[in-house]
């Protein structure tokens, strides 16, 4: 197993670990997500139909309507929110959304998380220090499709 540590800036403090769900697309808010089910619904989105519940969501950032924070706030109440958030591009949408989801969140990492982290990797997010630890199980990575995910090593 290989462990990679990324260092960045704290957005929301706290500590969490979980399986990564990675998208190069920005994540939509109102009109592109079903927060009660925790599923992306936007027609042309690469994660369409996929659930972010209990995942460490790794994305470029947030896009779309100003209802972004309210949608992910509802996801928190419905129990479908991600466990942690890692993103590249700071916007008011993603900042406020991370705050009201109350999940550890980091940005400004020293290497591009979209290049390093793959869906299914086990990721530990330290929102106090602003660090991300990525655990890659190289042996099983060849035998499992990344989308299928893996259990914790």
């Amino acid at each position, binding site marked *: 197993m290989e462990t990679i540590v990324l260092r960045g800036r704290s957005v929301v403090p706290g500590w969490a670990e979980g399986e990564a769900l990675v998208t190069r697309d*920005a994540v939509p808010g109102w009109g592109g997500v079903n927060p009660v089910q925790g599923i992306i619904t936007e027609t042309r989105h690469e994660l369409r139909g996929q659930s972010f519940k209990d995942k460490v969501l790794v994305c470029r950032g947030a896009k779309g*309507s*100003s209802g972004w924070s309210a949608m992910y*706030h509802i996801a928190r109440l419905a129990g479908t929110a991600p466990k942690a958030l890692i993103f590249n591009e*700071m*916007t*008011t949408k993603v900042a406020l959304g991370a705050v009201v989801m109350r999940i550890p969140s980091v940005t400004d990492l020293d290497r591009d998380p979209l290049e390093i982290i793959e869906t299914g990797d086990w990721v530990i997010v330290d929102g106090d220090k602003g660090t991300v630890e990525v655990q890659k199980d190289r042996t099983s990575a060849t035998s499992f499709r990344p989308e299928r995910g893996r259990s914790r090593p």
Partner: protein
Amino acid sequence: MKLTKGERAMLDGREGKARQKAMDLLVRYAEALGAERFVDTNNVAGVPGSANPFLQNYYSRFAGSEYDAIFSYFDLDADELVDVPPALVHTCHLQGGVDPEHWDTLGAKPEVFKIYRDREAFAANHGVQILKTCTPYLAGNVPVKGEHCAWMESSAVVYGNSVLGARTNTEGRESTSAAMITGKIPDWGLHRTQKRLGTHRIEVEHTVESVMDWGMLGYFVGDVVQEHIPVLTGNYSQPDLVRHKHFGAAAASSGGIELYHIVGVTPEAATLETAFGANTSIESLAYGRAERRRTYDQLNANAHDPDVDYVMLGCPHAAFEQIQEVAALLDGRRVSGNCRLWIFTSRAVKEIADREGHTRIITDAGGVLMTDTCSAFAQALPPGTKVAALDSAKQVHYLPAIMGIQAWFGSTRDCINTAITGRWNPEEL
């Protein structure tokens, strides 16, 4: 965070519990952004205290004080119930709820309508201007150049920043409600002069003229520029309010555009040099015949059935001249028995349309002119709708994803012709 004495007093609770919770949220939000201070705002546009069925149900255990409960726990993200004070600064309510007359047409049950009416009373009792529109700038809230605002509604934000030269980020439900009772918002992003400079140059090669053209151009620009700041040059004639409205709404849907510059047109882009300022890493993109065709095809990609059940206009809410245009196109004709025509606008514009006689023309033709909401926002369609026709790139972006229907995109004229025939038969692009 550097807090002023007044901000510190609010955070310490010396201005009451609600302001303390609002400042606590604003400080958490500002720190997440990396902002160092707040700016004062006296112009907030949000949806304070509004609720959808999920929230209504989630907070039903607070029966009796559920309005304060939703504002405390959801709007302010607080962990305790607080008494909500009236708005400290000018605050208007954006779209929400259902039309006060035609709520049953929208499929709302009487008990749901009552909830909306009570929520509206809550907002009004707290000094909130109940404009009930996504176009506050068409209903009396027109910020001036340089005015710091805290606005929600991506299409209003992009209009305020780009056309009026006001300064606002795309705020959210929680930050606008907190700003409403504190008059504060993080000094970050588009509040700062150097963050308003262009990043991408869009060379408009194909002539852009009609409202539909501007909507398509906006959808293209949002898609290629995403969250950045485009600067348009090239082949366009002076856009009016409606063209800006459709351009900006589309650009804020396919992407996250909050500010655009059009050289020679918008207030911060007298020249190309002013629009880009000190920015040197500029990307350049062209909008020609091929890009226009591709955008049109993308907007129509999800529709294949030419039999149309439903025509919706008024996204963003129709300006007075758009209602005038619809009335002129409809005058003396009838909407097909197989099709419904709904048009959405603000209460302010509808009042004039009523007095001017346009509402009667639309009603006589079989259409319905409504306020407060739209099909995407209310998640309301005429019963049995499978295929819609729309003249808004924004509505095409959202409605099929939200409601699982097909949607055609075309001009207002295409849409009215469809309402009359029940068939999608657009003019040549």
